[in-house]
Structure formats: C-alpha cells, structure tokens
C-alpha cells in the first residue's frame, strides 16, 4: 500500500484513540471549590477574554491569582483568548466573568475536548508524521510503524485528553524545532522552539541541547566566517520571536517582572505533591528515623526545613542538575550531530526532571518526547522508558478515574511497539548501542559478557513490579498510618528506573563517536 494511505490510517487510528479517551472524566470533575486543570483552562479563557491584557498576570478583584492564576507564558494566554472567542460564539455563559466559575456541562466538555483535538491536529500530529517521513535509512513500513507508536504513546494521550492539558502544542512546537534544526533549517527550527518556550516555560528543559547544538554548528562553520553570520542570525531570530510574543508585556518593567514572577515562583517548595524525582524519593528516608545514624538525620532534617536554607537547596539542586548534563552538552557542542542532539535532549530533560525543583510529574512528558524520537534506533529501551514514564503518572491518573484508558492504551502501545520493531529480538549489545561501552569495560573485566542478559532480566522484573504496584494501588487500601504509601512507592520505583535510564543514555552519548569512527575505519 502506498505510504500516504498507510500514514492516513495511522493518523486516523491515533485520532480515534485520542477522542475515545476524551470521553472519560477530566481533572477536578465535580470537585468544588478548586476543581482541577480543566477549570484552570476554562478560567484562563474567562480572564483573557474579559480583562485587558495589562491585568492578566496581576492580582485584582476581578482576577484572583489564588484561584488558578495564569502561570504560563503569553502564548498560552493568546491561545486561551482564541478559544474564548469561539466559546463566546457558542455559549457566552462558559466564559462570563465571575459567574462561570466551576461551569460544567456536557456541551462545554465537548467544546474543550475539541479545542485540544484541533490544536493537536494542527501542530503535533503533522510534526510527528513529517518527522517519521524524514527518518533516514529505514523502510517505508518501518516509518509508518514508527509514526503509529509515537502517536499511540499513552502518557501524552492520557494527560492531554484525559486529565486535560495542552501539552501537544508546546511539544509539537518543540518537535518542529527539532525537525528544523536537524534538517539544517536552523532559523525556522529556532523560531519554532522559541514559540514552544513561550507556550510553556518547562520547555526550557530542552533549551540547553538546542543551544549547544546550534553553537556547535556555528563553531563547525568557523567562527570567523559563516559560523559567525549564523550565530548573529540565530540570535536575532530568538530575540525577535521573544519580543513578538511578549510585546504587550515589554512596555513596562513591572509587567515583565510580574509575568516572570508568575512563571518562576521562587518562593515555592522543592517539590509539589508526589513526583518521581530525587528530592521526593529521598524525602521518604526522613520517615526511617531509627535506621539512620543520628547526625546524618540532623543534616537531612536541616536540608528539608526549607524556611531555613532555601538558598542551600537551590544551589544543591542547581549543581546536581548541571553536573549530570554537562558531559553530554559539552560533547554536543564539540561534535554536533543530529543523533547526538536527540540523545542529548533526552539526557538533559531527564537530568532536569530528576534534580530540578518544583517539578511536576507531568514534566516527564518533556523527556518522553525525545525518547519517542529515538524509538527507531533503540526500540527496546525506548519502549521500556515510555512504559515507565506512563506508570510514573499512575497516582495522578487514578485520581482522574482514568484506569481503563490507562490500561487499554498502555497495552495497545506495547503491542504496537512489540510487533513493529520486534523489540524482544533486538536486545543484543549492538542493538542496545552498548557495544563500545562493554568493549571498554571488558578491557578491565574480561568476564563482562552478559550485559544484554542482565538488561533482559531487569526488564522482566521491572514490568512485573509495575503491574503488581498497579494492581495493589487499585485494589487495596493503604494502611492508615501511611496514607500515601502507594503513591510514594510508585514515585520511588519510577525514580530508580529514571536514574538507570539517565546512566544508560549518558553512556550511549559518551561512547558513541568511538564506535562511529571505528566503523568508518573498518569500512
């Protein structure tokens, strides 16, 4: 069958799954007074439509910032305004100032879900299709299968169409950025990425690899000639796009500062709710008081009394984050390559997720997108990571009553990946891209020959653990003394997985060029 027929079918399957998932509940459904992310998005439509721009980010009697105040960059606000215009056309009650708080109806739900679908269809899905068509050295069927697997990734579907968010817009823009930069359309790529950052500030997790890759390209072209021109052009593009997006807020210093204060709330804690990063996972050791030696306890308790040592924790987190992503970024600057770029995106985003502060569990999607991009190169590990990333959001999804869509989409994704890429046959060292690494290790430890076997067993254990934990969380009640036991367990297990993947992806990046160069010598 022709390629575009197959792609159409794949896109239709993706859209069908998305829409059927959206028939389920959303975050905060029927839960006054605060409701959830769905109400937040509706509220932003109300605010942006009814109030002048100058008041969007400020606290006032009409705009109570405590009730879902706007905390995303201006592009989100403009998108909400656009949706509000459509809402006004259909039913003004949905966005009436003050009186529409907590508005819930079947028609409104249909409207909101449609806005997500349209945004997805216009931005994210074309990017995925184009990305898969541009993949090199693989057959048409594999390209289509790749598109199917990316479109079936459960995490994004469940958060956008279940919980309710617009991640597909920012991730879509970021993907256009990756496409542009990989295909040497650097200006368009950086423009797209700037749009992504201006939609959700969490895209800054991806900014370092973009910066390093483009800088590396400029260096390669020679800083005295074309490289310098490129650098200037890129700088101008970035500045221009930021100014364009922030235009209404650039006029007064106070406006800009207030928006920045809303985007980066420095007075909030190290982590919110339960999230699978280091800080949250290690905080559970606070509870194991009797096991730890006395002075160690004091240090930890001191670290976590946040009122006292804010700056210390911020610094700590900053150090850890940058130490873990520095090697990959330096390598990318010195040897810019499309493959290195994508793997560095994964590693940087994962470092930020694990060690940064104020991380939400949904931020794992920022790591999942780059992993989807390397699905065709390391299908086994990517599928494993994507399954874990979906599992790490289990407590959130259960709160939104999305158990059935979660189970169904996860199984569907797993089957799609398993049949498209034959992942279970591709666990040799070479296919895991660990060949050069294990060769280096074997220089010191000659018996290190069973790496792929270890990884296979780890995969089995991991899947069994995740399934068991899911069953336990769904069927049993947590003990009364530890009401958050299951969520914390999920976070802890996911965190361990993510640390493992961080090490793995960094190994691939650092040991990559050696095998590439050796291959070229052999050929």
């Amino acid at each position, binding site marked *: 069958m022709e390629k575009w027929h197959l792609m*159409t079918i794949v896109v239709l399957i993706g859209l069908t*799954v998305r829409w*059927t*998932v959206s028939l389920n509940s959303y975050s905060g459904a029927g839960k006054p007074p605060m409701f959830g992310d769905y109400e937040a998005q509706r509220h932003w439509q109300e605010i942006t439509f009814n109030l002048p721009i100058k008041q969007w980010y400020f606290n006032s009697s009409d705009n109570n910032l405590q009730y879902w105040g706007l905390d995303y960059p201006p592009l989100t606000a403009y998108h909400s305004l656009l949706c509000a215009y459509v809402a006004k056309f259909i039913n003004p009650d949905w966005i009436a100032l003050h009186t529409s708080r907590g508005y819930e109806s079947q028609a409104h739900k249909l409207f909101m879900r449609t806005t997500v679908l349209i945004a997805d269809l216009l931005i994210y899905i074309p990017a995925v299709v184009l990305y898969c068509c541009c993949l090199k050295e693989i057959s048409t069927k594999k390209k289509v299968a790749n598109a199917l697997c990316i479109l079936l990734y459960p995490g994004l579907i469940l958060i956008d169409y279940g919980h309710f968010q617009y991640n597909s817009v920012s991730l879509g823009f970021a993907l256009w950025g990756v496409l542009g930069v990989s295909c040497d359309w650097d200006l368009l790529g950086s423009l797209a990425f700037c749009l992504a950052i201006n939609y959700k500030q969490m895209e800054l997790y991806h900014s370092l690899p973009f910066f390093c890759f483009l800088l590396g390209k400029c260096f390669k072209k020679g800083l005295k000639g074309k490289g310098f021109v490129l650098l200037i052009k890129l700088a101008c593009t970035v500045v221009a796009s930021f100014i364009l997006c922030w235009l209404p807020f650039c006029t007064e210093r106070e406006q800009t500062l207030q928006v920045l204060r809303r985007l980066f709330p420095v007075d909030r804690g190290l982590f919110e709710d339960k999230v699978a990063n280091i800080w949250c996972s290690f905080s559970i050791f606070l509870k194991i008081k009797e096991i730890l030696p006395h002075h160690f306890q004091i240090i930890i308790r001191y670290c976590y009394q946040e009122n006292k040592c804010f700056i210390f924790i911020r610094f700590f987190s900053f150090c850890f984050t940058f130490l873990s992503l520095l090697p990959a970024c330096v390598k990318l600057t010195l040897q810019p390559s499309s493959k290195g770029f994508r793997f560095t995106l994964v590693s940087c985003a994962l470092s930020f997720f694990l060690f940064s502060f104020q991380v939400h569990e949904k931020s794992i999607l920022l790591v999942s997108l780059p992993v989807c991009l390397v699905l065709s190169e390391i299908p086994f590990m990517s599928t494993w990571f994507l399954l874990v990333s979906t599992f790490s959001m289990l407590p959130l999804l259960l709160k939104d009553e999305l158990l*059935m869509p979660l189970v169904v989409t996860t199984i569907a994704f797993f089957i799609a990946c*398993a049949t498209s890429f034959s992942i279970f046959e591709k666990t040799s060292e070479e296919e895991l891209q660990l060949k050069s690494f294990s060769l280096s290790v074997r220089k010191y430890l000659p018996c290190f020959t069973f790496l792929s076997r270890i990884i296979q067993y780890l995969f089995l254990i991991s899947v069994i653990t995740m399934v068991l934990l899911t069953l336990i969380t769904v069927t049993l009640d947590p003990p009364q003394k530890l009401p958050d036991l299951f969520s914390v367990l999920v976070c802890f297990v996911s965190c361990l997985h993510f640390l493992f993947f961080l090490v793995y992806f960094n190994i691939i990046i650092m040991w990559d060029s050696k095998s590439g160069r050796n291959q070229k010598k052999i050929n």
Partner: protein
Amino acid sequence: MAALGIAMGGGNWFSALALGVTLLKCLLIPTYHSTDFEVHRNWLAITHSLPVSQWYYEATSEWTLDYPPFFAWFEYALSHVAKYFDQEMLNVRNLNYSSSRTLLFQRFSVIFTDALFVYAVHECCKCIDGKKAGKELTEKPKFILSVLLLWNFGLLIVDHIHFQYNGFLFGLMLLSIARLFQKRHMEGAFLFAVLLHFKHIYLYVAPAYGVYLLRSYCFTANKPDGSIRWNSFSFVRVISLGLIVFLVSALSLGPFLALNQLPQVLSRLFPFKRGLCHAYWAPNFWALYNALDKVLSIIGLELKLLDPNKIPKASMTSGLVQQFQHTVLPSVTPLATLICTLIAMLPSIFCLWFKPQGPRGFLRCLILCALSSFLFGWHVHEKAILLAVLPMSLLSVGKAGDASIFLILTTTGHYSLFPLLFTAPELPTKILLMLLFTTYSISSLKTLFR
C-alpha cells in the same frame, strides 16, 4: 525473551489484530448506548427472576422478549455472571437501571462473546485461497479479510456503541459458511439451525441454505454438463439434515410446545403489527415507496385532487412504530412484501439450483437473499444491511469485480448506519472510524487487485 519475541513478532499477526480491535472496543465503553441496552438488561432480569413459563408473557417493560428461546437461554446464562456485578440489574421492576457496574458488565459481555466471531474469522481465513498472495504480509488476502471482518465499522458501532449482540451471531453464521466451504455440510447445517433459534432474522438467508444443501449435498453427483442427476439422490443425507433441524428446533421450542405457549412465542417473534417501516426508515424499497406516496399526496392536495378530510392522521414520518395506510398508492400488506421478496430472490435461487458453482455460488446466493430481504422485507431495521456486508467481505478478496461491488455496498451500507448514533460526542467517533475503515478497504483492495 526470545520465545516471547517469536510469539510477538512472528506469525501471530492475527492475534495482534484481534487484540487491537478488542482494545478499541474497551475504549468504546463510555460511549452512548441506545434503548437496546435497556432491552437486554430487561431480558437478563426476566430470564433470571422469572420461571420459563413466564418468559414470553412478561410485559412489565415495553421491551418484551422477542428473540427465539436459545437467545433467552443465553441471557439466562449471562445473568448468572451478572449477579456478581450488580444484583439490582436483575430486578424486573428496575426499569432503565444503568449503574456503572451494569454498563461495565453488559459491555464486557459483548466484547467477550465476540470471541466466537474471532474464531469464525480465523476459520474463514483458512477457506480463501492465496492465489493473489503478495510477498508482504499486509498484501495477503488472509490479512485483508481479517481486517475487513474483525475491524468492520458497522459491527463495531452497532455492537459496541449502539449495543447489541450481533458479534457472536455473525460468528455462528460465518462459521457455518466456513464449514460449508470445508465440505462439512452437517456441521454447517447444524450451526445454521442453532443460529436461527438465536435470532430469527437469519431466516432472510434460509432459502439459500435450503436450496444449496438440497442441491449440492443431497444430490451427491452431477451429470457431466453440470445439471442435476436425479438418481444420485441420497435419502440418508436428507433424513440426517432433517433430523438435525428437527432436533435443534425441538430443543428450542420443545419446552414452549409442552407449555402450550407456541402461539404466544410466535406472536412475539413475528410482530406484524409493527408497521411497514421501522421508526428510522431502513434505506429499502419501501422507504422510496413511502416517500413517493408522500410526494404524490402533497401534489394531490396542492392540485385539489384529494379531499383533505379523507387523509389518515397517522403519519409515517412521525418516528413512531405503528401501522398506517398509504394515501395515494395502494397500502402494503405483509403478504405483499413476502411475495416481492421471494420474487427478488428467485433468480439467484434458480442459479443455485440449475447451475451450482459450489460454495462460492452458495455464498453469492446468500448475499443476494440477504439483500432481497433487506430491500423488500416487512419492518426491516437498517442494521440488517450487515447481513449482506459481512459475507460479501469473503467474496471481495477473491475477484476484482466482487471487490468493487463490495466497496460500494459496504461504504453506502455503513453510511446508512450513521443515524443510529445521533449524539454529539459520537460524531467524531463515527466519522473517524468510518474514514478508517473506508480508507483501509479501498486502498488494500486496490493494492490486492493492482
């Protein structure tokens, strides 16, 4: 790990397809369901709470039992599982009861019983030959047929959204067809007899079965020119077929005969008081007839040829299920529709008798009988188009001519099912699924017969 790999990647594309469509069915659980949901809940309640003698007399709800006894026993079996989900659904007085557990149980029962349909598709795939087989898996006729049947749009929306149990019934029909292809005629006959006692709508295609079995099974040999050889008639075969049909009917209707309830059962099964057309008109000949009658009556009123007082008040476009009279054209009686149907079936029956072409000829005759009954039958539901579409899939992967007819039939047939789902959230679902199936069927069949 390697064994898992072989199981996943290797030859098990069929399981992947079946599992994939099952997952899609699970995603369709929260969609709109029609009154048929309440119908089946009511039947669960009736068969569970009341003794057999009351089943066809119970009328607390308007949705009385109007399927043959085997289906009633099927609901009885289901009700024993239902009681672990929600006991309240089995109370006859709980009209329109649809708790989340009830919904889950009913939806899962449809998904689960579809296993018979999956098995039947598997058997059908064995019957088609791979003469046109390409090297790629997705271009093999078996693969295409599996997708066309397992992922059939009409079956998905009628069974898993609108809510019915057609999956396993069509499974029985396809299985009996497969058995006839495999020359296991007795099994085929038995399966069809059982099917008839599950849902009597399959009477539409009974003539095809009857004539084929008589002509190609009871007459064991043909003359060299293909015409009938009268002395090869086998009494044994006729009697064994008759015995099968008789035993199945006895098992089904026997208890009700013993209770002297047969007239009541038959009146429930064949309610001719329901009117020529269903509330939503099935796109058949009588719909055109009604429309013509309406147009003529409007013209007649305008031109003052008709007396407004003489026009009957009951309107056929009111969306109600009832009898009415036509104003200009002669009124249609059930007998008239039967005669029209039989006349429409005659050419294909004659062909099957005088020029039998083996199982393929039988299949063609079956499809034509289904279409004739759809076009000229009394009180036809639009869902009955599936009776023609699904068997046609088997022919479509054989010849290019059949493929093009199949594409026209299936696309229009599926489109005619759209009014079944009229709620707003289902609009994108039905459009997306329809586009999916249509795109796949057109492109795969085009590639097959390149």
